[in-house]
């Protein structure tokens, strides 16, 4: 590999690794803060960092992300400011959604990260429409939609997969297969391997080791390239493991025997460090400094955001329509 390319790869991977560490650090911070009562609710992302960041590396700025509630690493790597994420979780005045949504329901239109909603997979048919619009308007943008493996059982997944294939759209379905849907293991969710479901729609389906950031990157990159070239959608089954609980309200000891601990061989942070060390891109000193810096940033940002007050009460009843209704005006007069 020529020097320039090598150095480009190095800086790209260090940026990615830094995002992995930032995500993990932020994740721990929020979980701890939730236990301290400083945060209401949260869905940890631990274990799914590299698959998301690998995917993010494969995208251009104009591409659209229809993500879900576990996509913090994706957002951080894509350049969503950390304070946007924390403000959303706090639901404070600076949250772009004005504290209307539960924590973990992010939105960042500037970075084309569509507002996350709760009914799982409901964003998938919507992503199909967005992809149709890209094709129709010839923007050259690709849409990537993420979702858990449990979400493949939903009506919305079926509708989206079939329509994306029928209309041959620039769309990548990235299944973040972390093995669990709350307490249901993937084996009880469905009998088939997730990637094989693509064939039912005449779509290409691939499996990738999500804990390998580079493998994920390569596979997503190729799928994005095909999509951009008009060769249609791909379903990618990215295998990972949900290292934490489903959410801060969940107690996985009720149902789970197998675990993956932080620092163990299957921890994507460890996998990524090994990979980058083997390439000679990082060493213990750099790792140490990245982690220390990440901790500092996370702590500072968190405290800054925690100081921001709640939104003005009247905002809870604004923006339902472009023009409000007389009923709501009347009701709000009664409330405030």
């Amino acid at each position, binding site marked *: 590999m020529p020097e320039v390319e090598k150095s480009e790869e190095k800086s790209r991977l260090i940026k990615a690794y830094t995002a992995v560490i930032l995500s993990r650090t932020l994740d721990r911070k929020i979980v701890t803060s939730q236990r301290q009562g400083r945060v209401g609710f949260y869905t940890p992302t631990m274990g799914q960092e590299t698959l998301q960041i690998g995917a993010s590396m494969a995208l251009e700025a104009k591409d659209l992300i229809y993500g879900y509630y576990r996509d913090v690493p994706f957002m951080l790597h894509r350049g969503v400011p950390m304070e946007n994420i924390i403000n959303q979780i706090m639901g404070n005045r600076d949250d772009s959604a004005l504290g209307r949504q539960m924590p973990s329901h992010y939105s960042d239109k500037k970075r084309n990260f569509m507002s996350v909603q709760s009914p799982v997979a409901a964003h998938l048919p919507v992503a199909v429409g967005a992809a149709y*619009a890209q094709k129709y308007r010839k923007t050259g943008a690709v849409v990537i939609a993420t979702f858990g493996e449990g979400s493949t059982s939903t009506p919305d997944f079926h509708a989206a997969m079939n329509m994306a294939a029928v209309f041959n759209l620039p769309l990548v379905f990235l299944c973040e297969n972390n093995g669990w849907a709350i307490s249901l293991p993937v084996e009880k969710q469905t009998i088939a391997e997730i990637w094989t479901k693509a064939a039912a729609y005449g779509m290409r389906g691939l499996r990738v080791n999500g804990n390998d950031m580079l493998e994920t990157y390569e596979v997503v990159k190729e799928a994005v390239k095909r999509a951009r070239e008009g060769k249609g959608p791909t379903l990618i089954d990215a295998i990972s493991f949900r290292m934490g609980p489903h959410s801060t309200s969940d107690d996985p000891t009720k149902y789970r025997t197998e675990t993956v601990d932080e620092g163990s061989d299957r921890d994507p942070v460890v996998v990524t460090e090994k990979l980058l060390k083997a390439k000679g891109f990082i060493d213990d000193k750099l790792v140490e400094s990245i982690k220390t810096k990440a901790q500092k940033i996370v702590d500072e940002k968190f405290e800054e955001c925690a100081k921001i007050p709640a939104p003005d009460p009247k905002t809870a009843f604004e923006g339902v329509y472009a023009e409000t209704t007389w009923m709501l005006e009347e009701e709000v007069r009664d409330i405030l």
Partner: protein
Amino acid sequence: MTEMNMVQAINGTLDMAMAKDSSIILLGEDIGVDGGVFRVTDGLQKKYGAERVIDTPLVELGIVGMAIGMALSGLKPIPEIQFQDFIFTAMDQIINQAAKIRYRSGGEYTVPMVLRTPYGGGIRGGIYHSQSGEAYFAHTAGLTVVTPSNPSDAKGLLLSSIDYGDPVIFLEPKKLYRSMKMEVKEGDYRVPLRKAAVVREGDEVTAITYGSMVPLVKSTFEKNNVNGDIIDLRTILPMDIEAIVHSVEKTGRVVIVHEAPRTAGMGAEISAAITERALESLLAPILRVTGPDSPFPYRLEEYYMPNENRIMKAVNKLMEYR
């Protein structure tokens, strides 16, 4: 000005709007090559191509979901659900997505979409081709629910809906698709949303109705020389409360007419809103002439639908009260 029925009026309006604005896309089952099972989109695929008049697979939630995504990406989709009875698999997309995206994203994302669907009885469609589900939508903040009662309004309301900026559920009374013809102005004109029309004026009673029931109430009042206002809501959510209260304060007697089952139907909201504001004006209880609280029968359809006899029974009861 040309005489036309509602199918022709809507077809022409879609044609006119699509010719002007390439961001308008139609999608639905059998709307393209076939021109729609009611022929409302006839000829449009030929004219605008299969990319703009899309024959979709058989999946209502996909049709609505796709339309939402198109709207989010700058298009103006007009999805069609073949019969309103089949919209229920798409309810999550409608209630949890279309209606809530503007709010949940702090206004960053909006859904300018007009969801067209034929509703109601009158074609002997039985349980699953006759339902009037407006109340399900009217209970959903974020939606705007519109229904025309004649070809001319259909055009003006549809054009207003396309430019509205938020999701509109556009309910087409299939009973009126071909049963009435009228002059429809050429060119662009708007019938405003959120505004009712007083389609007949009088002093003694107020009939509040919409969609398929408007011609029936009109002919009933005419035939029986009822001296009353008839208010055609046109927009069901949010309804035009000023027009309603204004009339009730004058007449003091109210009959509400809709096809949908009575319980928790729109008639309930209209009645409650009146009592809140104009109790002192009421000279008699507010009466509702509606479909009964049962599914919609096939062979005995005419017993289900409100008719002249039932409306007059209510009017007479109002007039005779006290």
